[in-house]
């Protein structure tokens, strides 16, 4: 197991009953020129320590918005969310989570190592420790040896792995991932999914993962949250019965297909509501 010596005097208390992220009656309405858009309506959800939770649903179902609310990148208009038992803003300020965006968003004038060092520099991590951490997270995402390369010298999949390494570098307990593999091809995606599961097992992080791929959601998750649009809401929460150890072949087992079927049914039901 890999622990990146997190400060033991961490001031973020774990919420009671083990809920790392907890949403209650969450509402969010965007005011646009075309009138209000109800992005999230009465969303209730508990995410527990060590969970791998996927959010799946069609565009406009509010899955990304929900993730951004957890990250304090959007402000809810009603209800409450806690992250590590505190408000998302306090959680963000205590650097409680790492966020992986849809695109790698690497800074082109920084090397891969430099990009991973960015959060460490901002957080004031000592230089010697920075080098250490960069090395470790690069190994974790299988990019050892690419530290001095510039982003444009790497493929899309490698860039996205570098962005995951960047989110891991300051060793937050929570990883928020917004369709990180959405722009990658199937083969690269399978590979990265497999790696992500291994990484999750090794680091014991709590992961919230937005996707619109059913196989990806079923393969990765311990809990699948099915959402539907207009207004954005949760229509089903599926606890996965798959074991934690998951080779890619598990996707051909009846158990896997059954869960995938239930997700598909949930998505369809959400559509029929309209």
């Amino acid at each position: 197991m890999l622990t990146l010596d997190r400060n033991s005097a961490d001031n973020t208390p774990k919420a009671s009953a083990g809920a790392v992220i907890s949403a209650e009656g969450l509402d969010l309405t965007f005011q646009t020129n075309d009138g209000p858009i109800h992005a999230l309506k009465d969303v209730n959800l508990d995410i527990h320590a060590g969970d791998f939770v996927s959010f799946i649903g069609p565009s406009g179902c509010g899955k990304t918005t929900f993730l951004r609310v957890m990250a304090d990148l959007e402000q809810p208009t009603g209800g409450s969310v806690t992250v590590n038992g505190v408000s998302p803003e306090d959680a963000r300020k205590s650097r409680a989570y790492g966020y992986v965006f849809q695109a790698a968003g690497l800074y082109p004038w920084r090397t891969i190592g430099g990009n991973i060092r960015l959060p460490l520099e901002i957080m004031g991590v000592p230089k010697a420790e920075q080098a250490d951490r960069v090395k470790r997270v690069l190994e974790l995402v299988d990019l050892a040896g690419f530290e001095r390369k510039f982003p444009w010298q790497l493929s899309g999949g490698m860039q996205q792995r570098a962005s995951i390494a960047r989110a891991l570098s300051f060793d937050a307990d929570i990883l928020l991932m917004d369709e990180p593999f959405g722009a990658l091809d199937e083969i690269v995606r399978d590979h990265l999914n497999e790696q992500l599961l291994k990484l999750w097992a090794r680091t014991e992080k709590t992961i919230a993962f937005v996707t619109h791929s059913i196989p990806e959601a079923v393969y990765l998750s311990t809990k699948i949250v099915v959402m539907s649009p207009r207004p954005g809401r949760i229509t089903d929460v599926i606890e996965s019965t798959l074991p934690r150890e998951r080779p890619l072949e598990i996707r051909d087992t009846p158990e896997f297909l059954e869960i995938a079927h239930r997700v598909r049914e949930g998505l369809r039901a959400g559509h029929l509501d309209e």
Partner: protein
Amino acid sequence: MKSVLPVMTVVGAVLLFWLVAVVPMNMHLVADQAQRDGVSVVPETPVERQAYSGIGLSLRNLHLVPRTYDFVRPRLPAPQQVAREMYATIFEKKITSKRSLVYHGWVTLAPTLLGFFIGTGLGILLAVGIVYSRVMDRSVMPWAIVSQTIPILALAPMVIVVLGAMGIQGLFPKSLIAAYLSFFPVVVGMVKGLRSPDAIQLDLLRTYHASNRQGFWALRLPASTPYLFASLKIGISASLIGTIVAELPTGAKAGFGARMLVGDQYGQPLVSWAALFAAALTAAALVGLFSVMERVTLRRMGMRTA
């Protein structure tokens, strides 16, 4: 080096056009002089010749064509005349001489550089203010745009005269005009550059709880570098033009602007043309210098240059 051929092609075309234009442009003057020298000219009197266009007269006096390329006070000097004048005033005069173009060049270059540094500094500061302060965005930007709608030819003499009345002369008033012209492209470019980071790059800093200052140094400033160089290249040539404009209407005794004016007033077109080309070459050299700096800097930053 692939860019050399297209550039040389354009230069060649311009030169060819120039060479052809020299003949009709100077033909009337050359014909008058030839007549005084006892050479036969068709038609025979200057009044009659006025009825002809430059081209028409040239076609009737093909034997006078060589003379148009070597006329003492041409309306349009030939390229080699300008080149000879430039060579003479750049290399054959001591640089302390009042007739040396190097001397005049420095008189113009010094306020250009000073004004450019003032303008660039001011432009960057204003851009940072505009990007970080909503109040400045609303108040400064419109004025910056309005400032560029005032004809510099009208403004420059006023500034020079007013400052002169206050006892400020020489380098500084010219620098002020240069700064006035160069700050604007820097403001516009830097505002665009500082705002160029995309939503993901900005959100990322927010998730790190980075301060504005950290965001500036880690993201906004490096992201604006390519924009800054584009602005600097426009700004430095604008500065040079500003300085020359400041020299023109005020009876300046030295500088490219003064040489252009002197040549015009004393019927020495070659002096004007030599100063004009020297100014153009100076501007090209300054822009070239920034291009090299741009390439080196961006390469060092790992960014691919287009």
